[in-house]
């Protein structure tokens, strides 16, 4: 046996327990703090607060659409026709895509309903939808 082999220092084997402890703590941290949500952007076009003339022109040209808190939609020009945000078909024939569309949500309507309505308009090819002023629950007062 060679002398070099005799005096070779013994390799100390590290215990894996300490390593797994640290790795478990790191795993817990990342599991608890990580978020896997996928975010989407909903562009909100709001009525311009610029000049009174511009606003007046926009209002004259625009079509107004009421959104109730229950998800019903009614065009101001044809209030007899009612549609739901899940089925816009009855309204699509009445809406002129070239004119700006102003959505007037009821004051008690929720943000989820507004987003759903904007999504449905976009799917129907109506991209010129502007968020207008909220209307009271009893619309006669508006």
């Amino acid at each position: 046996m060679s002398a070099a082999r005799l005096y070779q220092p013994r390799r100390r084997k590290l215990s894996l327990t300490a390593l797994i402890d640290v790795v478990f703590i790191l795993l817990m941290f990342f599991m608890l703090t990580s978020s896997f949500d996928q975010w989407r952007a909903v562009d909100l076009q709001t009525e311009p607060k610029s000049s009174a003339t511009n606003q007046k022109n926009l209002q004259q040209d625009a079509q107004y659409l009421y959104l109730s808190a229950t998800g019903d939609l009614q065009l101001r020009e044809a209030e007899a026709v009612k549609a739901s945000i899940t089925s816009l078909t009855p309204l699509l024939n009445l809406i002129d895509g070239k004119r700006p569309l102003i959505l007037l949500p009821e004051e008690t309507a929720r943000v989820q309903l507004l987003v759903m309505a904007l999504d449905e308009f976009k799917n129907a090819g109506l991209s010129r939808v502007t968020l207008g002023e909220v209307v009271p629950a009893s619309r006669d007062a508006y």
Partner: protein
Amino acid sequence: MKLLAVKSRSATDDNMIPLINIVFLLLIFFMIAGKISSSEAVYVEPPLSSRDTPLIEKPLVVLVDENGEISIGGEAIDIDGLEQRLKTITQEEKSDVSVKADKNLSVKKLQIVLHKLQAQGVANITLYAKVSGRN
């Protein structure tokens, strides 16, 4: 006579190697796929949307919870505080603002915040939404 075999320490460590492999894989998955979420002053459950426009992170994010409580940069503020805060922000930062509103917030309360943002010169407002399973 055969006595019970005493397991050596190295033998027990060897049995832990598959466990360590799995834990390491899980750790790498969470580190790469997950995104560490920052804690906010108000709790917001964003609305669900079926659209596929990805959100581009904006420098200024205004959070509005179900009751209309507002938070910017992890600090809870009221509607007048929002106005004051916006006055201290440069016009460049204010040009594009994201609003993370709760899905149960009433449109009336959202409208108040939007009007304040508009009054302070915010041109583009983007609403945060989560992907719904309807795609």
